[in-house]
């Protein structure tokens, strides 16, 4: 299973970026191989509705779980449609929050927790 963490940097020691649609990178963790990798969040270059482009990117990468700080209504709708679980309010390094997730310490988002941005 592939987990994505919105982050400021590319490795497991990178801090979580609380913004999903406009984060720089996603640190990816594969639970099957115990390996980290990363992708550039090209969705952040969208003029508007970056959350939708970002959700589409994560869906194409076959991500199944997303860990972030906040999620807006468009990104939430898109990730929900893609069947991707979202956990919000994460703080610390990518590695820390993935451990928190595995210990079931993170809260699963059942709705967007922030309004739409940039309009």
């Amino acid at each position, binding site marked *: 299973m592939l987990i994505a963490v919105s982050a400021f940097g590319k490795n497991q020691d990178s801090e979580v970026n609380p913004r999903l649609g406009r984060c720089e990178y996603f640190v990816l963790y594969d639970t099957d191989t115990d390996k980290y990798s990363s992708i550039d969040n090209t969705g952040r270059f*969208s*003029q*508007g*509705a*970056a959350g*939708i*482009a970002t*959700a*589409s990117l994560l*869906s194409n990468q076959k991500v199944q779980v997303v860990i972030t700080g906040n999620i807006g209504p*468009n990104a939430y*709708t*898109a990730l929900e*449609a*893609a*069947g991707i679980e979202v956990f919000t309010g994460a703080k610390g390094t990518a590695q820390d929050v993935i451990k928190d997730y595995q210990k079931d310490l993170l809260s699963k988002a059942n709705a967007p927790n922030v309004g*739409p941005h940039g*309009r």
Partner: protein
Amino acid sequence: MKISVASGKGGTGKTLVATSLALSLIKNNPSVQLLDCDVEEPNVHLFLDQEPINETTVSLPIPKINEDLCQHCGKCTEICRFNAITLLKDTILIFPDVCHSCSACWHFCPTGALEPSPREVGTVQISQSGKLKLITGRLNLGVHASPPVIKAVRGAIDTDTVTIIDGPPGSSCPVMAAVEETDYCILVTEPTPFGLNDLSLAVEMLKVLNVPCGVIINRDVPGNHLIDDYCQEKGLPILLRIPLDTEIARAYAKGIPLVKSSPVWTEKFIDLYQQVTQEVTK
């Protein structure tokens, strides 16, 4: 004659000027149209007793998917520059609030699975107040598409009748939709640094749109030359000064237009209109 009223900064007196100008002009004209194009918060109707005539809705086309025809090729999501339509696995998702109604998605859909479907974004209400016809645009709650509603209001006018347009604040798309292709724009400002800053933005905008303009200084204070100096530098006429006066503010706060609470202003607004006419024909 179409005269728009704008300001840059909000709360400087656009509606005060637009209502009083329109009410003054009915003295010498068989009919006058007043358009409330501040569609996010229309308020002209608060100042006039009126009889409703009709109400129409404003709709924009947004894509609607026929799942039976969709082959999930993703062409629509590639073509949409706003991310308003996206393909997630085998699901097409449409985000109405993000859609700009550009029509590219249904135009380029290879299987005809997308077709336009109307989305209501606002209303246009027409009412009559004596010789004054009021046309009010109202954007639906939570919708971001002001310019189409403003254009619908402007599309409802009788082109042979004198038209006064009360515009929204700012200097971006909604204001441009309200002032473009008018014969003249009256810019209402106040003698404060904020008033001046936003006035200068509005003046630059009107230059781009090629609409001539003049300035009304509202809440004018003797001895303050902030706006005068700017207008002199830019060669802009100062059409009228409305003093900072608690009596004016008090009556206006009760919903009484300036020319009703203080009829001496009627002649001043008629003079203002003549000045504008001269500026236009200059």
